[in-house]
């Protein structure tokens, strides 16, 4: 077994960095300003709520499952998780989302929030399904 970092390791690391930086650049989303945003909230694969997402929607929801709870806030065209029962609070750190395609996930509680722009092409795929 080789004990020191060698040129192949550095090559592997460089290749991974280049590929992933490219992926990040090309997967960047366009900022779409529209009022047809819809926020879908899924809990354990069930669509529990959906909001047509405008500046003046204001709400606070608690979503409970067998494993715990998440408290959502919706205000000023943004949606975020205010409090959760999970120990790592990753869903809270994901912050406020407001743009098309942005999402919040909470793995322990099976919560998944996603914002979809209804003017987007993705809706056509949805209908085709």
């Amino acid at each position: 077994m080789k004990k020191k970092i060698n040129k192949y390791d550095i090559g592997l690391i460089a290749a991974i960095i280049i590929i992933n930086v490219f992926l990040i650049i090309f997967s960047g989303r366009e900022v779409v300003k529209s009022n047809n945003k819809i926020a879908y909230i899924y809990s354990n694969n069930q669509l529990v709520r959906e909001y047509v997402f405008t500046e003046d929607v204001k709400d606070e929801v608690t979503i409970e499952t067998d494993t715990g709870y998440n408290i959502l806030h919706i205000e000023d065209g943004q949606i975020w998780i205010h409090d959760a029962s999970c120990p790592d609070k990753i869903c809270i750190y994901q912050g406020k989302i407001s743009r098309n395609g942005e999402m919040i996930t909470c793995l322990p509680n099976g919560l998944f929030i996603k914002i979809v722009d209804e003017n987007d092409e993705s809706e056509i795929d949805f209908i085709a399904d």
Partner: protein
Amino acid sequence: MNKTQRYIFLSLLTAAALILSIIEGMIPLPYIAPGAKLGLSNIVILSVVVVFGFKDAFLVVVIRSILLMVVATNPITFIYSITSGIVSTIVMSIGCKYLKNIFSLIGISVLGAMAHNSTQITVAAILFTTIDLYYYLPILSLVSIFTGCFVGYTAIFVTDNLEKTLLKLGREA
């Protein structure tokens, strides 16, 4: 080294992996992406792969995941930790067996960390039935390079010491 000594070593290493997993959860880290973490217990898993081989590493991973669920987390986290643990162990074993003349432990550890992330996202995508989660894969892969280098570099020292200890034990027996 006889069978009992082997099992004692493996149980000590399992305990070390479990404790590292628990401590890792207590270290506050800046938030980068969901699922980004240090993977400290991977130091132990990689060392077991190198010193003892795939079968023992597989056992250590499975027992570590079950104990972690009982001690610190919940059954859903267990699904993620056991699947990604097993896949990254398989990848690191293949790396140790066939690529050891090319990569050092650092390269193998980076490969293992990438496998770990990919599996975790795949499992999440299956559980949530959405492919959107793959959006996080590039950023997680970049993070896994840093943690992978750290884990690999540490594992070099651990395997060195472990091999010396086992050699000494073999001479005394």
